[in-house]
């Protein structure tokens, strides 16, 4: 059976600078993989390559056995990623932004509303649904960025340090949300410095740059 996402010997070298040492990984539906490593080891670069946002200078990335082309509609629909802050609409409330995202994926108003409420409650920010993004603290903003990414449908979820600026309780909420998606069949790759998050999700671990 073909794996959902495969990266074979991928590496990124720019002007003789190694941004990502040669790395191989395979992830199937329902699997979770934590990418670990020191600052600058190449964790974010690996996620960018897996998201199709940066070409690898060596190796291949395959989605269900096909070379990954993120401009292809089916591939774009399969992979959701939070690598840096997603684009925010400053004139929409949190709930409206999530409903707008759902509308662009084809939900009718009722379904969009239900999905929005579910994501906000899952991350413990339902009470903030009438706020504008400029009215959030940095931790709340991080949770909202996660909500924006989790609100869209996906079969592969790529997250860069989802625990940033979150206290232990909120990290637990994030771990629960990711476990639920994994249980529903979503493959999850996340870069992290948090051992607690890795243990809470119970994910496999890939250490980038271990042999450098």
């Amino acid at each position, binding site marked *: 059976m073909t794996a959902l996402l495969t990266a074979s010997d991928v590496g990124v070298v720019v002007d003789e600078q190694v941004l990502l040492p040669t790395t191989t990984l395979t992830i199937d539906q329902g699997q979770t993989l934590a990418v670990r490593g020191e600052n600058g080891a190449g964790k974010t670069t690996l996620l960018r390559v897996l*998201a199709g*946002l940066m070409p690898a200078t060596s190796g291949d990335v395959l989605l269900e056995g096909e070379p990954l082309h*993120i*401009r292809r509609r089916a591939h*774009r*629909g399969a*992979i*959701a*990623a*939070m*690598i*840096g802050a*997603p*684009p925010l*609409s*400053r*004139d*929409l*409330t949190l709930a*409206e932004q999530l*409903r*707008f*995202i759902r*509308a*662009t*994926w*084809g939900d*009718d*108003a009722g379904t*969009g509303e239900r999905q929005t409420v579910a994501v906000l409650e899952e991350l413990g920010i339902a009470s903030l649904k*009438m*706020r*504008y993004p*400029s*009215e959030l603290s940095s931790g709340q903003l991080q949770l909202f960025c996660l909500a*924006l*990414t989790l*609100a*869209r449908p996906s079969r592969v979820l*790529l997250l860069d340090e989802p625990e940033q600026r979150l206290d232990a309780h909120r990290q637990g909420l994030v771990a629960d949300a990711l476990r639920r998606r994994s249980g529903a069949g979503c493959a999850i790759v996340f870069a992290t410095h948090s051992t607690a998050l890795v243990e809470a999700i119970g994910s496999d671990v890939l250490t980038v740059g271990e042999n450098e």
Partner: protein
Amino acid sequence: MRDRARVAATRAVHRARGSHRTRGDTAYLAYISVLVAAIVGVPIIRTIVLALAAPEAMEALGHESTARLIAVVGALVWVGALALGRVRGPITPDPFVAVTLGRSDISPRAAWSRELLGSSVGACLALTALATLTVSGFLARGVAIDTAIAFIVGSLLFAVPTAAIWLAGQVVTRRTAAVCGVVLVALLAGAVSLPLDALLPATALAGLWPGGIGATVAPLSALGACAIIALVAIALLLDRMLPNSVEDHAHRWEAMTVLAGTGDISGALDRTRTRPVTGRRMRIAFARPLVVAVLQRALVGALRTPLRAAVALIALAAAGAGWAWFAQLQEGPRWVAAIGAGLLTFAALGPFIDGFREAADTAGRPAVYGRTAGWLLALHLPLPLLMGVLVPSVAVLLAGSDLGTAAMAATIGAMLVAVRAYDSTKGPMPIELMMPVPTPAGDASSIGMWAWQADALLWTAVLSFWLSTSSTAGPATLLWALPVAALLTALTAGRLGRAAS
């Protein structure tokens, strides 16, 4: 130590930090300013004066409709001053000075009178200079000299309350600013509809225009009274200035100047976008099809910054009035009216194209929305198209012009929406443009950089100028407008494609 002495001591410390302009810097700046004025400014001013002194221009300028336009522009200047005060008030010192003086026990009057005086005098001089330029044709021809001079004096008196409104924009609360905005819009409505001898401030100014009502004493008295009231208001407003307002404006302005200095004009202008704090209970139904949901979303988004949207609507209507004036001019400075109306339309579309910016922002980033950046941008077209097409063309008809002129205003409005869409996909400046371009006259790289920065304005000016010289008007304008719109669409798609890859 008295307040003023403490302020002087603080400023001395600031100068000693080295961030302040030195005497050498000031001398060099003066030298460059004189050179630029002599080489660029004088020929431009001379061209404008000669164009305004042409017999056809004199006839058009002496018409009563021009006096009405002066009243409308005067009222718009006040609305614009209030809006400007919300984002860049007259008291915008260096952030260090803003914090040091603003957070001390020194009174606002002692702390900020210097900044306020500099900004206010500068604004008054600029408005008076502009007024002098507009009557320069009369002065050059020696026609209606007394009235022209009265208009210049009246403009100076009109500028004083303008400075007060600018300060009010920075000082007052959001709620009070909204009330001020309503009052100023009511004055604008008066400037549009009331007789020119009605002695509202803007109509009083228009009454002084050569070809206006022919009286000088009553309008000048009215404007003088306004100026005196404004001076008292300035003193009262200054005492109410809060330190956080000065700091916000100081930090925003510093960020804008840094961004503009690095060539990121879009980023600098983005700092002027006000953040919504009201209107969160306005419901967006997100009805299907998606294009309707996006239109609802864009409309509600615009209404959540009501002053910004109101100023934009008024400016679009004023652009329509400009097109009506353009249609009246059979000869003379048609291109001035066309380019002015075009640039005003371009600027006024700003609050309605936030969706373009957000769509362009998704290119090359992980997909959150179920549509590509190009699709999202296309979905955001209806609101700016409605505003850019409908508002100016209805204003043209209300100004008494014909359907052909309205169709022309609608066409250029649609074209400028395409220019706006193209401009919103610009992204960062290509590094190649920053490379030195050695020529016998020196490094010419700045020409490319400025052309890249100003390309949307150049597009606007060229399209408007083209329209002013085109023998075809009305629906026939589509003959050349459609290929240009197709070209802009292709250029926009190209930019989005490059950003995505």
